[in-house]
């Protein structure tokens, strides 16, 4: 079992921010990308996103993208961040499998 399982799940916002940064993006780009992916369900407020970006930078899960402009700073995921996403996908898969098995929802 991956050790980060003990740390619990990522929040939806953090998960989607990390996922959107497999390609370098600036703040507004992250908001748009996450909005598209979730078909408007996950709206990231700028205050929420700003706080999350700073926390992820501190953790070393993302970093400033090389050569990005100061006014429109771009960010990109780090190997450590990718590890978090992969662990999260494993947790999500487990949740989904168990959920479908118990509810019988896989027939749907």
């Amino acid at each position: 079992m991956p050790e980060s399982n003990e740390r619990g799940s990522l929040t939806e916002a953090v998960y989607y921010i990390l996922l959107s940064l497999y390609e370098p993006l600036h703040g507004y780009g992250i908001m748009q990308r996450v909005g598209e992916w979730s078909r408007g369900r996950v709206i990231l407020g700028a205050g929420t996103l700003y706080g999350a970006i700073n926390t992820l930078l501190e953790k070393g899960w993302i970093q400033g993208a090389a050569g990005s402009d100061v006014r429109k700073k771009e960010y990109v995921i780090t190997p450590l961040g990718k590890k978090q996403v992969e662990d999260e996908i494993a947790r999500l898969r487990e949740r989904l499998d168990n959920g479908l098995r118990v509810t019988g929802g896989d027939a749907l």
Partner: protein
Amino acid sequence: MKRTVWRLFWSADKEEAWLNRMASKGYALTDYFWARYVFEETDPGEYIYRLDLLDGSAKSPEGTDYIRFLEGSGAELVATYMRWVYFRKKAGDGSFELYTDLPSRYARLKKLRRFYCALTTLELLCGVVNLSISLLYFWAGDAVSLINVILGFLMLAIGVTFLVTLVLPVQSQIRRVRYEMNLFEG
């Protein structure tokens, strides 16, 4: 057409709600300084306003970094006042919320509570100092300093009002968000 309104708010939520009511009537805030609000006439409901509390002043590096980030997301900075910033966005561009998940709403409420607590403590402290001064005069055999007695009680009353109208409501909001956080991740 410009319209100036003088009004004093202590609660950020009430102030923001009032600005949005004004905007829905066609008065959009363009400037703020010391209880003085300047509005321009626009189409009713053209803008949505959001008020935020920074960690430092609006001119500090952290403050300007945050403001620049919000401007990059399409928000327009309308005014700054000490640690407070006023943003707006056209309603036609979609919803405009700054804090959209539980952890960030929780962090914002805790910051608000710190601010309101500091304000309340300051008032109560000033009240106590004023009453102490009048007592000192009294013990020294002088006439009771009426001005200090009045100021002292006034400040204590304001302090208690802050406690009831600012600190306690934000406290119950914090409790509600914490409860939600037990159930939901986002």
